[in-house]
């Protein structure tokens, strides 16, 4: 276990160095793409925690991002609050609503949970369109930027910092007993209860935590892009986040980040192909599901393991071989 753990950290460290170096070598276009990719990375990683670790397949995750973007923008624009107050207040609202949603879906699982959260997201999107006086509806809400000058580079680094902080926060959470309990709930809720786990509390905790992170991603997105529209909450956006998490590795938070960056970069590289690029991404999703079910990140890690470590160094595999008693 320890060996893989360390190898994973080395790999993550290398990827971080690479990400830090991008603005030095890439042009403004790719810096912009990168800064946007960080938005998706934060969303995909937090969704991986919600769905992959805790088994709560919520489709309302992008709605919490929109809640963040709109919340921070409206509190500053309409109520004149300073940004330093608007941001924490928005995150707090997202946490309260996250707790509320967690409580609402307590008894739902699988497809019912998905449909319920999908309906919540749609209602929220329609509210954003309908409340034109407040949100400017489909016209889009202009949001002031965070930095004067410097182009997209400061946003790129802010986004990267958010990714790193979100990963650290979520890994911190998972390293506690809460991580144990979330996995147990995902595997079998009834057995978790019979083992003394307060499943209600922990499901609400994971909704609160991931809703807060999604709202932060949305706040970042709004101030970076400068315009918010209800299209943030359309189903294909949620589908994109899910595809990113699944391709990268739904049960691995850094995996979901890698998935987000790969998928978003690919969709840019393949832009000339129009709608066909999504067909290609769909194909990629199917191939990953077929050949690397735990996502690309774990697949690459395993590959590196196989290349560098003797077989005996990995006594356990997911496939269930285990070391014989010596």
């Amino acid at each position, binding site marked *: 276990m320890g060996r893989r753990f360390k190898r994973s950290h080395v790999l993550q460290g290398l990827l971080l160095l690479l990400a830090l170096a991008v603005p030095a070598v890439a042009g403004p276009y790719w810096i912009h793409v990168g800064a946007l990719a960080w938005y998706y990375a934060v969303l995909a990683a937090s969704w991986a925690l919600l769905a992959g670790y805790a088994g709560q397949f919520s489709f309302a995750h992008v709605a919490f991002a929109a809640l963040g973007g709109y919340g921070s923008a409206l509190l500053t624009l309409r109520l004149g609050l300073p940004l330093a107050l608007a941001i924490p207040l928005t995150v707090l609202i997202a946490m309260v609503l996250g707790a509320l949603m967690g409580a609402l879906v307590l008894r739902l699982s699988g497809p019912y949970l998905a449909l319920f959260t999908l309906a919540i997201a749609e209602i929220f999107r329609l509210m954003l369109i309908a409340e034109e006086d407040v949100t400017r509806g489909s016209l889009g809400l202009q949001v002031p930027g965070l930095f004067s000058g410097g182009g997209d580079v400061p946003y790129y680094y802010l986004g990267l910092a958010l990714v790193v902080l979100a990963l650290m926060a979520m890994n911190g959470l998972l390293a506690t*007993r809460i991580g*144990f*309990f979330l*996995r*147990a709930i995902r595997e079998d809720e009834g057995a978790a209860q*019979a*083992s003394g786990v307060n499943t209600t509390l922990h499901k609400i905790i994971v909704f609160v935590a991931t809703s807060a992170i999604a709202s932060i991603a949305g706040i970042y997105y709004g101030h970076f892009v400068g315009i918010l529209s209800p299209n943030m909450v359309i189903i294909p956006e949620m589908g994109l986040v899910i595809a990113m998490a699944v391709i990268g590795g739904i049960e691995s938070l850094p995996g979901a980040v890698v998935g987000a960056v790969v998928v978003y970069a690919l969709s840019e590289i393949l832009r000339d192909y129009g709608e066909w690029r999504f067909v290609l991404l769909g194909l990629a999703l199917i191939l990953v599901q077929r050949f690397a079910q735990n996502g690309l990140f774990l697949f690459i890690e395993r590959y590196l393991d196989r290349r560098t470590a003797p077989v005996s160094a990995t006594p356990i595999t997911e496939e269930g071989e285990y070391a014989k*008693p010596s």
Partner: protein
Amino acid sequence: MPSPPEAPYFAASALNKHFGGIAAVADFSADLQRGEIVGLIGPNGSGKTTTINLVTGALKPDGGAIMLDGRNIAGQPAYRFARAGVGRTFQVPRLFRRMTVIENLMVPALTAARTSHRQAEDRAREILAFVRFEHLAHAYARTLSGGQQKLLELGRALMLRPSLLLLDEPFAGVHPRLLEQIVEHIRTLNAGGYTIVLVDHNLDAVRSVVRRTLVMARGRKIADGPSEVVLQDPEVIRAYTGTRKAMEGRA
């Protein structure tokens, strides 16, 4: 003057549970003394598992009381039953399949806020030794055989340090050699002071470990007493699997 009889350690009284119009459990009452081991038998659909689900909090009773050490815990969520010391296994093992054996064991221990990871792991190792699974500590639970899964589930329930242990069909579908091992474990636990309720179809195995047997049929308790007396009861014979021969053959 003789001292009053000791209050039962665990008591279910007048438990009822309906599913739609069907009474799955009707007016079920039973007392257990501390350290007692009893069998709960009955034909399929007689309400045994529903009863287990009621007295472990997995289902809320429509009416009745569940007293544990003098406290009524009926209606509380299942995790509170577990923390109050009610441990259980399931008919079909319900493990945390994509967690390792030792992780499965650590979950219940970690629900006690004061237990550290280290303490949880130490306790898990004790239980691993008890069920002789030391070599499987880091195997994923889903890779275990059916019988091994039952043993791991027993171990997981023991991690709660349960004062009452309910085993739902621990012998079903278990390899004969492993069955002996499970019977041995149950005897050891009972000798160590655990209060145990054993639900199973394997009458021989049940009878080999319990003295007292409760029989259910159509949601009701129809007999309760020393196993040899209960198993000769004409009503029990009539109810149980409907075949007199089968009972006599086993008795």
